[in-house]
């Protein structure tokens, strides 16, 4: 080891200690000014945050002349690319909710609060807000100094710029949110001409204020005190969950690096107590106290510690993604040997299959058959038995359709009355029609004859849309 390298290392360590007096654990009393350090996890965090660009840009995707994804609440139509989902198909929403709930559970069981640390809008927006803060106000010590400084023109200017930028982001958030629910291009026009719906303005306003307050002011306090998922996820962890962990056995007893002390004389562990892990923590906790409620598992302390370990020439990974089992030297189970993984995956798969089945079997038209119950059947003067059905045709296409009704099943002498003219089914609505089915009594083999109604319409494109619905023909007991 050359002298210059040792000197350089000593200086680096001194700087760390000079700085460390500023870092202590967040008890909620003051604003957390977390230090930003580059690193592997920092980069991954930006990539994960980048997924939220979909939220801002998604509404401008077009598909066959309409907005690709549009949740049209006033018209009760939900367009997702080629698929149009109506409230009648909303059972799929429950599966979607189940899917995401279990996804949260499975992800948390495997890799801890990965949602909180990398993907959650609270984390991402706060990250962006503090990034702006750093660009404008400087590193944490300067920020603290500025906070304490008396108001002058410079401070007012910086602060005003910051809050303005925050509000602009808040506004963009609200505006983008609304753009998923109304046609985006016309939103741009009507919003700024003052012609948009009051609900639109209120929503954008609430989102602007909400984003500004939550990401600008409340920050990690949201995760500590407001967010239920933070608490729920806490109990989803188990001994095998991989989370950012401080290796106690390697690190303790922590102790400052003594100048001129060689590796052989060292009585302390690998932790040099520089508090960099606390410095970078966006929620202001000390990971060395172990996994705790404040930890959103963002892994920024791993970056910080690895950088320090590199500087002092000790192996990296003092803080690393590890499970409690691994840390305590227990045998670690393979992923597929854990029952949790199987149970969660089965539920995930079931929900996913349900949704895929739902989307696959979405008919362009839907038929409901309501059988008259009073009376269930009547005898006609020619001796045949008549049943009355109300057909409800839901037309999910964008065309007005003429829907032809036919019937399958029953004896050859069956007569369908009232379906001579096609049902006129306006788009996006339910159109009712009453039809009668007559079967001569002598041909009735049972008091319950299964029948199937078929409906068929032709779209303006020439595409034939069809669906069917089974029902039963009731007759007198034999």
């Amino acid at each position: 080891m050359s002298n210059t390298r040792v000197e350089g290392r000593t200086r680096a360590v001194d700087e760390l200690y000079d700085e460390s007096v500023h870092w202590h654990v967040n008890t909620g009393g003051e604003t957390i000014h977390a230090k930003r350090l580059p690193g592997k996890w920092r980069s991954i965090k930006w990539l994960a945050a980048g997924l939220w660009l979909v939220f801002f840009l998604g509404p401008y995707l077009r598909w066959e002349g309409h907005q690709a994804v549009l949740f049209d609440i006033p018209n009760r139509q939900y367009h997702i690319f080629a698929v149009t989902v109506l409230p009648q198909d909303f059972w799929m929403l429950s599966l979607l909710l189940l899917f995401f709930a279990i996804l949260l559970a499975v992800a948390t069981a495997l890799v801890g609060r990965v949602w909180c640390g990398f993907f959650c809008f609270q984390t991402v927006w706060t990250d962006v807000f503090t990034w702006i803060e750093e660009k404008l106000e400087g590193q944490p010590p300067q920020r603290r100094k500025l906070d304490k400084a008396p108001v002058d023109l410079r401070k007012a200017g910086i602060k005003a710029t910051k809050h303005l930028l925050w509000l602009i982001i808040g506004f963009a958030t609200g505006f983008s949110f609304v753009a998923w629910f109304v046609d985006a291009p016309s939103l741009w026009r009507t919003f700024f001409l003052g012609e948009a719906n009051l609900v639109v303005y209120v929503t954008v306003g609430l989102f602007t204020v909400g984003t500004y307050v939550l990401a600008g002011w409340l920050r990690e306090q949201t995760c500590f005190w407001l967010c239920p998922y933070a608490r729920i996820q806490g109990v989803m962890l188990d001994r095998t969950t991989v989370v950012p962990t401080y290796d106690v056995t390697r690190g303790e007893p922590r102790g400052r690096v003594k100048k001129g002390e060689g590796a052989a004389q060292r009585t302390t562990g690998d932790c040099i107590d520089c508090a960099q892990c606390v410095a970078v923590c966006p929620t202001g906790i000390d990971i060395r106290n172990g996994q705790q409620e404040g930890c959103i598992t963002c892994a920024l302390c791993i970056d910080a510690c690895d950088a320090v370990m590199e500087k002092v020439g000790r192996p990296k990974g003092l803080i690393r993604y590890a499970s409690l089992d691994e840390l305590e030297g227990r045998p670690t189970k393979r992923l597929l040997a854990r029952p949790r993984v199987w149970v969660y995956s089965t539920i995930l798969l079931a929900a996913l299959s349900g949704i895929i089945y739902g989307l696959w079997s979405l008919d362009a038209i839907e038929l409901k058959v309501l059988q008259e119950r009073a009376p269930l059947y009547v005898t006609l003067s020619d001796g045949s038995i008549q049943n009355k059905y109300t057909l409800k045709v839901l037309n999910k296409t964008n065309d007005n359709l003429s829907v032809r009704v036919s019937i399958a099943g029953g004896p050859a002498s069956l007569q369908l009355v009232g379906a001579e003219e096609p049902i006129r089914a306006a788009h996006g609505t339910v159109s009712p029609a009453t039809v009668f089915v007559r079967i001569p009594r002598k041909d009735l083999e049972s008091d319950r004859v299964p029948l199937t109604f078929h409906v068929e319409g032709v779209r303006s494109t020439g595409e034939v849309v069809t669906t069917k619905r089974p029902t039963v023909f009731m007759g007198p007991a034999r």
Partner: protein
Amino acid sequence: MAEHNPFPGENNTGHIWDDNLRELNNPAPRWWMIGFWASVLWWVGYAVLYPMWPIGQEPTPGILGWSQILEYERSLAQVTEVRAPFEERIAGMTADQILADPGLTQYTLSSAKVLFGDYCSACHGSGGAGNPGFPVLADDDWLFGGTTAKLAESIANGRKGAMTAHKGILTDAEIDTLAHWVVELSEGQPGSEQGWALYRGKGCNACHGEKANGILAQLPDGSVVTVGAANLADGIWRFEPGGFESARHTIAYGVNQPGVEQTRDAVMPGFAGRLSEQDIKKLVVYVHELGGGK
């Protein structure tokens, strides 16, 4: 009451009896008091804005002028407003014209469902299912005709069938023969010669028609002339439960015969005085669409 307080610092009111029995002052928590006074304020505001003080016959109206009845009337006015264009169109149309328009038919059916429930279903059953002694309206068998015009007549003016009691006019054996013959007809058989002979010989055909189908004459426009006599040649029975005993009873005691104790009772009241022309028209459409209108 003690002049000087022997229990200082415990927040008592100074009311002390029998040396040490004293009243403490434990005020309610501040948040509770704030809530209390806020609700008092709320109450005052409510009393001013809404009807409250029972003075005389009516309570004070409140400066908002709100009342349940007003709210009800306003909602009803809204409903009426939505219905108005339909009602106006229907007013100028005949039942047949309404039936030719699927949209208006749909409106009329929804609207008349309530009327049917209020005025008709007590006897004819919901959905026109019928009840013992009261005809099924969902089938295609009509004593007085199933065209819209005939239906309107039946609803407006009511109907009262009549059939002579034949006990005493016919022998028991003859009544039995006729009853058996009617059962045969209802089962789609041609009917005994004896029965037909009796039917014609005793003049039953005067009301029930040459073919025993209740029709006296068919007019060139397709409508038929009846006097409300039952169609004996179909499988539908006017009086429950149908079959030999029912037929024998009806032949013996007749329908609506004064002074005959066991006579069949079959009266439909007229609704002309109780329902508007518009409502009767709607009911005609409704009954026509129950399943057997002609």
